């Protein structure tokens, strides 16, 4: 690509020739250690990091090139990279168009030919969905996201509908991450037809200061939603549910219990993942140092796990939950009992895992 690519050599690279090629991928690093893209072989527990000149956020596996992972720049980002975990290098990168910025997440169409990214208009503040060719990463177009602050998104099982977490919070590149509209914010779960770009439907939660920020989807179209409460714009301290489930043709259902656990999550969920096999969704709260687990069909609370600064969460090929934190730690929890396999705990200190983690098999 004609640009310096540094592979951090302070750790052994994942042995990607192994038969067990399951790899955890995530944005990694901080100001002190430098930002980058981290990936760790689950079998070998060895870690590598490709340095980048920006802080990443969400990651997506390329459906047509499974060894390639896209890492999107964190809000308000202007860059994304394509890393190849078999080649241990960054193989491509792309920028936002003029007057656009990334919110940090993206997803592929079912056929893998198109990439959708959540973006903002830096002039008007409107939310946009960027559309790119998945080979050249040339922008093909865009459509309105249906609100301010589109953050996470994914494609529905029908292959033609996007579900977008519209956070509702206005930020602008010139004011960084400052929240500019808390009193008027409108957060929605919005469904968009990818063929026409038209909004099909939108759903809200009762608390207007709940910002719907992250989501994951099951193969039957059940969406698990993770929210963040803008408490400074509220006048009470009542605990507000932070997780919710949305099923097709139904209203959003909040995960209202247990209240003490919700309170301990400190108004903030960082990530969510659905375990298809066990129908359990895990929601991480780095501000509460807790992962909470709920059944996505019965909405019953099924357990929790405490871990300092936990945020990244993924489901591996054994249907276990993998969770990470900024102290470089990865833990594996049974997908049903939620008990930790303590002997598999991995710590790579000075390698802070950032907000989101994905388990891929290559």
């Amino acid at each position, binding site marked *: 690509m004609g640009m310096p690519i540094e592979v951090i050599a302070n750790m052994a690279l994942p042995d990607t020739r192994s038969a067990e090629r399951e790899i955890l991928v995530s944005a990694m690093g901080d100001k002190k250690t430098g930002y980058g893209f981290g990936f760790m072989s689950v079998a070998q527990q060895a870690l590598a990091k490709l340095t980048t000149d920006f802080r990443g956020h969400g990651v997506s596996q390329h459906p047509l090139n499974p060894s390639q992972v896209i890492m999107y720049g964190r809000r308000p980002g202007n860059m994304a990279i394509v890393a190849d975990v078999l080649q241990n290098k960054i193989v491509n990168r792309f920028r936002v168009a003029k007057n656009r910025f990334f919110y940090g997440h993206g997803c592929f169409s079912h056929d893998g030919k198109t990439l959708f990214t959540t973006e903002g208009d830096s002039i008007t503040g409107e939310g946009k969905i960027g559309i790119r060719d998945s080979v050249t990463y040339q922008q093909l177009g865009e459509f309105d996201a249906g609100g301010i602050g589109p953050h996470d998104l994914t494609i529905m099982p029908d292959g033609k509908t996007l579900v977008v977490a519209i956070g509702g919070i206005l930020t602008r590149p010139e004011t960084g991450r400052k929240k500019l509209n808390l009193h008027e914010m409108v957060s929605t779960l919005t469904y968009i037809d990818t063929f026409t770009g038209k909004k099909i439907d939108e759903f809200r939660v009762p608390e207007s200061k709940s910002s719907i920020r992250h989501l994951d989807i099951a193969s039957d179209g059940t969406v698990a939603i993770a929210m963040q409460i803008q408490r400074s714009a509220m006048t009470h301290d009542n605990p507000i549910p932070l997780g919710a489930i949305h099923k097709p043709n139904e209203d959003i259902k909040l995960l209202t219990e247990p209240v003490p656990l919700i309170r301990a999550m400190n108004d903030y969920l960082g990530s969510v993942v659905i375990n298809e096999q066990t129908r359990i969704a895990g929601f991480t709260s780095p501000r509460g140092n807790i992962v909470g687990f709920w059944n996505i069909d019965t909405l019953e609370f099924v357990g929790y796990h405490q871990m*300092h600064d936990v945020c990244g969460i993924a489901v591996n090929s054994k249907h276990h939950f993998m969770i990470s934190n900024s102290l470089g*730690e990865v833990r594996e929890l049974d997908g049903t009992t939620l008990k930790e396999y303590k002997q598999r705990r991995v710590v790579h*200190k000075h390698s802070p895992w950032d907000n989101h983690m994905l388990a891929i098999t290559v």
Partner: protein
Amino acid sequence: MKKILLFSLSLFFLPVYGEHSTVVPEKGQAYLPDINKVQASLVYDHILPNIRSFLIAAKDLKATANEFCHTKTEKKLAELQEKFKTLSVRWHRIEMLNFGPLNDDIFLPKRDAINYPINNTSLSYPRSFVAKHLNATSGIDFSSLSPREKGLLMLEVLLFETAVSNDKQLEKIVEDYKKNLGKCYLLKGFSELIESDAQYIDDGWNIKYRQSTKPFKDIYLSGTLPDGSDSLVTLISEIQKYLEYIKKRNVISMTAPLSGISYDNAFSVINSIESLLEGVPGKTSFFSIIEAAGKKSVVDLVRENISDAKQALSVKDNSAYNAAVGRLAANFKRDLAESLGINLGLNFADGD
């Protein structure tokens, strides 16, 4: 073999966060063996004495409540109200230590059991509970009640107003107690509960922490807490979270609605944080090691924000107080954490 070798290599290069004795400080960071001295002083000179003084206040309140229920005089009620104020002010010196015995049960942490539930309708719960049990003389399991029906707010409702009509005069409150036998049952029950919670916290820090064989003070000073987190990181991040909490919730206008001591409580918070950072004369403190590391500007900045918070409280300027508290929260999140060479957590401090 290869697997072992790879893992060994990665271990070889592992830098250290929590194991203080092996870390060489970077320029502008406090020297870590000194942090261990500061932590010891913090525990023995600040945390344990304040937890003990809260326990003593709880015992005093319970004893005085029993005396009041025996005599039911205005004088004794006034004394009881003062005991309550002392208890509340002392609670606010330790409330920010939301780890260990204050928060060792995710579903019923002691902190929530004692603390004010802050929301617009919070008075309605203890008021309804009292009104419903005016004639009760037995049968209530006080410890199993929800946090909004016990703790400091419940005691306020029992001590500073009459049931149902909510009159505030001493004379009427005493009459209310004479008229309704259940009120003394409730007062004794809730006083005993808060004493029991205070004893639990004191025992946990001093004698034995949960299933462990050690007191929490030893666990804390070992540097690593039971969940694997670093004790200093936990201390700084919990205080930071607490400061953000009181700023976001506008706590001043929402707490102590009947006793009228919300400013005293707030002063207690700020004084406690100041004392925690300044330490005791002649001993190494957080401020002294940060200054010694060449970061006097950080110490000056934090002192200025503490002073601003106190000034705002002295003139009852809530917005200036919230602003100062917000700046203090930022000091804990960045300036103090960096000066102490600790990582509060990327996701905690700067998520999205």
